[in-house]
């Protein structure tokens, strides 16, 4: 189950890092193609998510996350497992 609070925190982090309009950050949006994230932005986004949720996101996991929904799902799962705060 996805927590609305987690969705909001992920969206805020994406808005903050990618400087995109909050209205654009829907679940089906692709972070690279639709939200304009380049490779440096992607590294920054992972770092910002680690900072926001207090834990470590490994490279393989990070590479598998394509859409905003993927990120929310992944973070929700990790929070549920208590491997993120």
């Amino acid at each position, binding site marked *: 189950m996805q927590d609305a609070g987690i969705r909001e925190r992920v969206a805020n982090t994406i808005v903050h890092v990618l400087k995109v309009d909050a209205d654009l950050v829907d679940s089906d949006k692709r972070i690279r193609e639709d939200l304009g994230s380049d490779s440096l*932005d992607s590294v*920054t986004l*992972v*770092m910002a998510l*680690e*900072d926001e949720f*207090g834990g*470590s996101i490994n490279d393989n996991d990070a590479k598998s996350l394509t859409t905003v929904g993927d990120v929310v799902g992944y973070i929700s799962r990790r929070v549920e497992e208590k491997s993120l705060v």
Partner: protein
Amino acid sequence: MSRRRVVVTGIGMISPLGTSAGECWSAMLEGRSQVAAIPPAWKRYTETASTIWAPLPAIDWLAHGFSRVDQMQLDTSGMLTIAASAEAIRDAGIEASSVDPKKNTFRLAVPAPDRCGVFMGTGVGGVTSFFGNAVNHVVSPLKTVVADPSVLPPMPPRFNPFGVPAMMPNAVSALLGIHWSLYGPNLTYAQACAAGTVAVGHAFRAIATGDVDFALCGGAEYLGDPYGGIFRGFDIARTLVAAGDDPQQANRPFDRDRSGFLFAEGGAAVLVCEEAEAARRRGARAYAEIVGYAETFDGHSIMSIEPSGTRIVDMIGAAVRDAGCVPGDIDYVNTHGTGTTVNDEIESAVIDQIFGSKPFVNATKSLTGHCIGASGGIEAAVTALSLAHQTAHACHNLEHPIRDLRFVREAGPCRIDTAITQSFAFGGHNAAVVMKRID
């Protein structure tokens, strides 16, 4: 091409004395230094002979325009540099317009950004970021194998993927070129404690010879690693001040009872320098004119100043000649003045030999502590402020001068037409900038 005139039109500064040039200058005139016990956490790793330092004030990085993400990506030396440059640019009355909000970049209202240079000095660049990543790299694997992870040293929560750009010393210059969209020469000078002075001198030369019309120049340093490892490096070299009975009076350059320099957490000073005619046309206010620069090298020792001071004498003589002056024209000497036994002995003898007791002699480090690669920039800024305001701070804590020179004993009005600011560095680098009052 005849040499063009160069003026200082903007100053930005962060030091242990304050987070703006105004705060720092006021503290200097009021004789308020910043001395504190070193962080208790450092004592976990070793006992040091020196136990005091000059910490920076708390800095609200968000208020300086650095988001949490910026703060994760940048070394503190880089943030100090950008923040000081923003103050200097505002102070110079130059408009900045946003270019890319995501990258936090701006364009300055200057005629030709490709004729604007950046010349910054730093001793060790982003060494604290290197420290953090190195500790994370080495200690993280131990977390799963030691019985009690709480015995491990604290470390950054992640191996910073921006560790390389945070660490590289040229970041202090590159960040300014990126942040302000300046496309001319972008250079970093690493002459340790003389780096800032060398940077200002080279900016002066680049404008004077016509290579650029405008420059951001100065120095930046951040030395407050969480483990005290950088402090220990200076401490074990026996360069740092002893706390004594009264730590507030321990830092006393040129005093009989001096014992070493006061290690500063860091700082940055950025000067806006412009070709004088261009500055006049845009109606800029100028603090001072830079009129001369010279540098020499001791060729003697990687860690100690050459005892005869011969190359320093040569350097000061060349700087004064470069300014079209003779030694008798110099009214004010902003010394390297660290408070170490050897530096102050040799420097005071050199000043006596060249200038005698005519000029005012001052040691800004008596108030700021030693900001290493930032110190030359800070002292160039202080010299420009002293010329503009015809006012000098005092040589703090000086009670028993080691030589009969005209040390500034009390802050206050001070007639200065021509001033020199000089720095000497580990390695053997000597450099000085000469400035004149604006008529």
